[in-house]
């Protein structure tokens, strides 16, 4: 197990390194950042001074080393717009995004697994077909459009839920969270549902496909032949087997939920990293964009690591090592 973790950590380090090269190449090497960094009226002298200050006159590899060096020290530059360290700015917005993403995942799992199980156990029933049709819609409708429809329906027409923002927050570990207050929760519902829709459809499909396959296995018939109640056959024998692919895919998708929250955060004016990213791109605030990208990459890596660990816990064939007998 320890070997497994160490190996995965080493792999992760390689991924992060490769990504920082890409980010560096994408942001620093393409185009000339100096045109955006200083005002167009600046004279030749000011321009040269700025170039020297930023180290842009140095060869490419030296620039890269400098970038990595300060990045390792947690310094990803200072936001042009806000005048504060870019990394701090991104991290400060991170809890809001994480909260939204986790709530969306929760919605996707809590609704998706039972619905997928049902559709898998009774594929020809009316309910089974309605569920599958719904999941096709969830896949194909664009997130921003659904988001706006949700606002139209529940915020504007019915007036049940607020249209945007985080609402009241309460502090936990020194970080403000919306889900701790009733008002915050009402603000959380619509964006979480909006962000969950795509993953919900995915979970339904995974759970349904898994259920259909597992339900035909001899061990399910054997479990029934032992006289077990259907709740135990479905809730333990089938569920535990379909959870393996669901957890794996979901874990990997958590990263993409965080990435996709860009759209939902913009529609619902949710003050997370995604909204910050869009704002920063519009304002050409490059250090913030870089900080966002690197933080997201790190997140992906950490999440994948956790998924691998959970996966190995779920499947004894992996946890206990040893090949298939």
């Amino acid at each position, binding site marked *: 197990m320890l070997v497994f973790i160490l190996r995965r950590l080493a792999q992760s380090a390689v991924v992060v390194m490769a990504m920082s090269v890409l980010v560096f190449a994408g942001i620093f090497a393409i185009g000339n950042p100096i045109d955006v960094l200083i005002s167009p009226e600046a004279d030749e002298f000011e321009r040269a001074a700025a170039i020297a200050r930023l180290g842009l006159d140095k060869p490419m590899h030296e620039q890269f080393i400098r970038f990595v060096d300060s990045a390792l020290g947690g310094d990803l530059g200072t936001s042009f717009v806000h005048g504060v360290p870019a990394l701090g700015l991104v991290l400060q917005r991170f809890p809001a995004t994480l909260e939204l993403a986790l709530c969306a995942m929760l919605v996707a799992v809590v609704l998706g697994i039972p619905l997928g199980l049902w559709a898998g156990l009774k594929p020809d029933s009316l309910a089974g077909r309605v569920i599958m049709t719904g999941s096709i819609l969830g896949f194909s409708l664009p997130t921003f459009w659904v988001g706006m429809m949700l606002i139209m329906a529940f915020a504007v027409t019915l007036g049940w839920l607020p249209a945007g923002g985080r609402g009241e927050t309460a502090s936990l570990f020194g970080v403000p969270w919306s889900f701790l207050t009733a008002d915050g929760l009402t603000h959380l519902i619509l964006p979480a549902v909006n962000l969950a829709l795509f993953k919900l459809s995915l979970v339904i499909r995974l759970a349904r496909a898994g259920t259909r396959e597992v*339900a*035909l*296995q*001899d*061990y399910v*018939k*054997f*479990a*029934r*032949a*032992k*006289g*077990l*109640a*259907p709740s*135990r056959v479905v809730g*333990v*024998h089938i569920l*535990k*087997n379909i959870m*393996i692919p669901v957890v794996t895919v979901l874990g990997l998708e958590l990263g993409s939920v965080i990435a996709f929250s860009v759209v939902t955060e913009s529609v619902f004016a949710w003050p997370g990293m995604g909204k910050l990213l869009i704002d920063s791109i519009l304002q050409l605030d490059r250090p913030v964009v870089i900080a966002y990208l690197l933080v997201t990459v790190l997140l992906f890596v950490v999440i994948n690591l956790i998924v691998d660990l959970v996966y190995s816990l*779920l*499947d*004894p*064939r992996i946890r*206990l090592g*040893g090949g*298939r*007998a």
Partner: protein
Amino acid sequence: MTEPLLRVDGLKTHFLTRAGTVKAVDGVDLRLDRGEILGLVGESGSGKSVTGQSILGLVDPPGRVVGGRVLFRGEDLVGAGEKRLRAIRGRRIAMIFQDPMMTLNPVLSIGTQMVEAVQAHETVSRAEAWERSRRALARVGIASPDERLASYPHQFSGGMRQRVAIAIALLHSPDLIIADEPTTALDVTIQAQILFEVQKLCRETGTALIWVTHDLAVVSALADRVAVMYAGRVVETGTVAEIIGNPRHPYTRGLLESVPSRNRRGVPLRSIPGMTPSVLDLPEGCAFRPRCDRSTGACTAMPELMGDREDRAWRCWNPVGAEARGDAA
């Protein structure tokens, strides 16, 4: 005759598929007394597994029992509700499946799978259920059962897994075990061991056994009586001695001639010509007609079960040996 433990009357299980109705089991009759071992023999696709599963109501859709009765201790299981069936499954009638690699859930420990089987029928503590499972494993010859209970199926060999399945089947000392080719997937030596042990355990506990197989040699070593299936029906039934020594149905005779045997050394093995018919389009009348060298015009009508006793019967218009006896239909 006293009421048997199990009596299957005209059991029909059909699969309603897109390609048509598959009459996998189409009128099966069986009877089994307490403690008796019945070999259910037939080619692949003859409906043996579906028969076994129909008895316990375990056929999955699109399959459905569409007719007949399964009288178990006088109670008809075909009409029984799911709840009643659940009380019988595993407790009164247990099942063992063909492929031990597939019968145990790969993500649950052996202990979990045994404890739940105990607790499905008895309200006992986990510790007590564990102890019962331990003893059951020891009984089927598994060493260090405590350690084994904590293991997962992938840590076991095929033979060990089948022993675990047998241990699970024996947990509640059922009246009947339906074993669906439990040794086909195993090595020959392990096959013989398991065969011997199951027989011993059934004799000890007075458990009746339906041993499904396509291997007549196995049946003759193990069973008291034999039922031969062909295309969804029992075509001949009798004691082992009767079936082996005096087969009446041409199909049974064909099966016997295709089994290598010590006392017929030197006689070339014969295989039955032709192929198992597709259950989707069976010939009219006797299903064996296209492959039968004794068929006559009469065979276009479905032969009834005929014979001297309820448990010695065959389904053939021109039974083997009829000439000598002069009792052809």
